[in-house]
């Protein structure tokens, strides 16, 4: 049972990584790309680490994986926010659809 749960969680995390990479490659602007990678990458890593924890069982290594999850839950949105804020301060203009009013 735990075996299948681990496989499902790891596959979901890999699918989210794939969606984030497609967003990074295909979206038109820096801010929209940050929108894609900030959420998909964080949740994908959390799901993958949860799958590895379920496979590992209750041990010291599972606690260390949980520490990685907590660190990433704090660090990755903070890094994305810092990038967007630095780009705003450096006067990088957001993307506008053609024909829309500036």
């Amino acid at each position, binding site marked *: 049972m735990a075996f299948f749960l681990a496989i499902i969680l790891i596959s979901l995390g890999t699918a989210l990584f794939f969606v984030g990479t497609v967003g990074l490659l295909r979206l038109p602007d820096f801010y929209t790309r940050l929108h894609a990678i900030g959420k998909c990458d964080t949740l994908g890593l959390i799901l993958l680490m949860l799958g590895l924890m379920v496979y590992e069982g209750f041990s010291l290594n599972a606690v260390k994986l949980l520490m990685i999850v907590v660190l990433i839950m704090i660090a990755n949105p903070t*890094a994305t926010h810092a990038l967007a804020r630095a780009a705003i301060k450096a006067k990088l203009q957001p993307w506008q659809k053609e024909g829309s009013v500036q």
Partner: protein
Amino acid sequence: MGDFFLAIAVIIGILVILSLYRVVYGPGVWNRLAGVNIIGTKTIVILALVGFIFDRVDMFVDIALIYAMLNFVVVLIIARYYTKEEGEG
């Protein structure tokens, strides 16, 4: 189960190579920074998976933890550096 972990690690490696396109060709430094950030996150997962493949989870989990901290610090410092570069502080 080791084969499954190996397949997942290979898939994530292919995704890293796809993300490298944004680092190499991305217009401007900000797109390159976004690519570096996403590649660092994927590398953490690859390190943990390599530990499970080689049955040395105790060692590779520590490396992944240190890599997560370093990735966070590097992105923060580079973003701050390029903010000051433009003169606003």
